[in-house]
């Protein structure tokens, strides 16, 4: 307590109230004041005394000064306006009209999506249809083309046959069935000058041969058989005419059924057709 009293007696507190202390000394007084209530009380009493002293010495300013001072304060306020606080709205209110617009937009979007899907599905189906029709037409076209080619080929051969009949160098030999196969028959075209021998598939009526056997054409030259090659009896021959081995001269032609590939000498028991060359 003695220390506090000495501090009070020093006159430092009066200087503090009069604002005559350095910042460092002020901090010290404030520390003491907070620590010792007696010092705080002393400061308070000095302050009150100075306040009363000032009040007792008051000089009322003129009324004009009051207006001047408030005008100055207002002007100072105007030049340094306080920053206005702007409150950002986190959830701005959405109007009913806007909601309705959005709802309408959503409905329109869904409708458009449905129409588009239907359109796409329809287009896809039609595309599939078109593709299958194109494939179908393509097959038909190939078929017609093949057919046309076949007909053309046939036409060439038919012209050839017609020419052969009209041409005196060609001999048309009709081969008739033997006792074993009386219904069998076929035709052979032979060009004596060019030695060419052709068989006509369209004029051929023979029992269909199996895979183990083939028909063999023979030329009878001075009573001896000469091999002219083998052929099959088929209903779907690609060509009308089948070219056989060449022979310069013959008196007759005959066909026997032999093992596949043919034989060196004909099996007389299996002779199917035979025909003489007209002189």
């Amino acid at each position, binding site marked *: 307590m003695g220390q506090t009293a000495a501090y009070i*007696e*020093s*006159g*430092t*507190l*009066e*200087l503090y*109230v*009069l*604002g*005559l202390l350095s910042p460092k000394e002020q901090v010290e007084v*404030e520390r003491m004041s907070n620590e010792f209530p007696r010092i705080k009380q002393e*400061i*308070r*009493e*000095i*302050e*009150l*005394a*100075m*306040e*009363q*002293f*000032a*009040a*007792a*010495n*008051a*000089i*009322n*300013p*003129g*009324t004009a*000064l*009051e207006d*001047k*001072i*408030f005008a*100055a*304060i207002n002007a*100072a306020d105007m030049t340094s306006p*306080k920053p206005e606080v702007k409150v950002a709205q986190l959830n701005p209110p959405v109007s009913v009209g806007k909601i309705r617009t959005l709802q309408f937009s959503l409905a329109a979007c869904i409708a458009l999506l449905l129409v588009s899907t239907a359109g796409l599905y329809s287009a896809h189906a039609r595309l599939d249809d078109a593709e299958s029709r194109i494939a179908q037409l393509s097959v038909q076209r190939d078929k017609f083309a093949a057919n046309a080619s076949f007909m053309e080929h046939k036409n060439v051969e038919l012209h050839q046959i017609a020419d052969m009949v009209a041409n005196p160098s060609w001999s048309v030999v009709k081969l008739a069935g033997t006792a074993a196969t009386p219904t069998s028959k076929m035709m052979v075209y032979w060009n004596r000058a060019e030695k060419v021998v052709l068989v006509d598939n369209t004029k051929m009526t023979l029992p269909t041969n199996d895979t183990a056997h083939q028909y063999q054409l023979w030329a009878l030259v001075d009573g001896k058989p000469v091999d002219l090659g083998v052929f099959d009896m088929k209903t779907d021959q690609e060509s009308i005419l089948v070219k056989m081995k060449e022979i310069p001269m013959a008196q007759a032609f005959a066909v026997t059924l032999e093992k596949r590939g043919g034989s060196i000498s004909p099996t007389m028991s299996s002779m199917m057709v035979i025909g003489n060359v007209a002189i």
Partner: protein
Amino acid sequence: MALTKKISLSEEELVRALKAQETIAIQALYDMYSGALLGVISRIILQPEVAEDLLQETFIKIWNSAESYDNTKGRLFTWMMNVARNLSIDKLRSKDFKNSNKNQDIENNVDFIDAQKKVTFNADLLGLREMVVALKPEFTTVLDLVYFKGYTHMEAAEELELPLGTVKTRIRMAIMELRKYFN
């Protein structure tokens, strides 16, 4: 002026309103303390027009630096009084004021004395005048230097050729006299 209704608020309310920059605070402060503050200023600056300019400056500064006032460190009036005193002392010590004052000292000595008288013998101060007279001269001189003339206690010690401790004690004694008087 007499017809104007004076605003008076409690110190707590005043401080709150002042810090919140409510215009009513500065209005109340003016009504309650403009006279006392002008009294303080006028003791330091004897020219009434300059003193009134300083009163205006004082209120603007009070308004603008309200946030720097800390009520745990002292009363609001003490803070305001020191704002007024510091502005006045700064003015007193400024070059241009010293020059004009010097001229006044030489040329308008009478006015200067009158101004001083006007303050000292203000009708409101009759009681104080008696009190000040009642103070021992050595106390009056020291208080006059630091409180009215803007001297620091160091400057006062130099001026009076006294030890610093003595100056401090005399200031304390003078204020003790005032405390006795007002209680």
